[in-house]
């Protein structure tokens, strides 16, 4: 296991290597959440009280941080996935794969920062006398 982790993090290919590593970690993370999400939605019919208790955690401040991390993983995976599809279906773009990677980060920040602010609004809503 440790050997695999060392292998995963070993520095090999600059941007492409990091893109691959983040894609894999975010992908596995999203999958784990989807499994949890199937179970929590099952509770809506199976045990609504338990679901509402879980929802209280989801909408708490720590829950919202996890929600923002989930959103970040989803957004990164979506943007990098688009980059992979572009390179696969249009191999000439491989030359520009680094530019594509940095562009995906620009979109990530432009979309992700307002998104995180919306998710975390209970944290800052009181700051402006609201």
């Amino acid at each position, binding site marked *: 296991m440790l050997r695999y982790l060392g292998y995963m993090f070993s520095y090999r290919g600059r941007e492409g290597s990091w893109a691959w590593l983040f894609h894999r970690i975010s992908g596995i993370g999203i999958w784990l959440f989807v499994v949890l999400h199937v179970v929590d939605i*099952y509770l809506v019919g199976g045990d609504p009280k338990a679901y509402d208790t879980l929802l209280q955690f989801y909408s708490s401040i720590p*829950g919202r941080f996890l929600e923002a991390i989930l959103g970040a993983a989803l957004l990164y995976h979506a943007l990098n996935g688009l980059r992979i599809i572009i390179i696969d279906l249009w191999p000439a773009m491989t030359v520009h794969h680094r530019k594509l990677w940095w562009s995906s980060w620009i979109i990530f920040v432009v979309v992700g920062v307002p998104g995180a602010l919306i998710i975390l609004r209970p944290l800052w809503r009181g700051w402006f006398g609201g």
Partner: protein
Amino acid sequence: MSDPLAPAPVVAPPQPPAPPAPAAPPRIEISRTTRARVKPVGSRKELIMWYLMRLSGLGLFVLALAHFSILHFIYDPAQQTSEFIATQRWNQFFWRAIDWSLLMLVLLHAFLGIRTVIQDYVRGPRSRPIVLWTLYLIAGLLFVLGTVVVLTLPSPSGNPA
């Protein structure tokens, strides 16, 4: 300076063309530049999965991001009680169908992804089929469980439950 008495260099006679190599087993390659997974050759099954991965990815780019935006930006999680889901969100056939399509697509995409991860790290000739079949079992269970969850939640407007 060349020695006039040295023997003339031996020129290799032209080689007959090498016989065609035996068909190689299907290989799944990774690009050294981008770390993208190179389109598989030699296996129709792997090629179909390769395309399915990308097609479901495109579908999820729209469906998953829309789902997240609607339920995390437009609605706040604090609003989404079990009552909200039963009487509003999933009381509409349209959203139930959209959410089910999203679930099927995400389960397919995740299944193919985890399969790739297993093929990368589980190399033992005996352990790999065991781990892969465990994954097939879990994936099948999730498809069934997810569908049951979407279908069985009573809908006040439809099901007289």
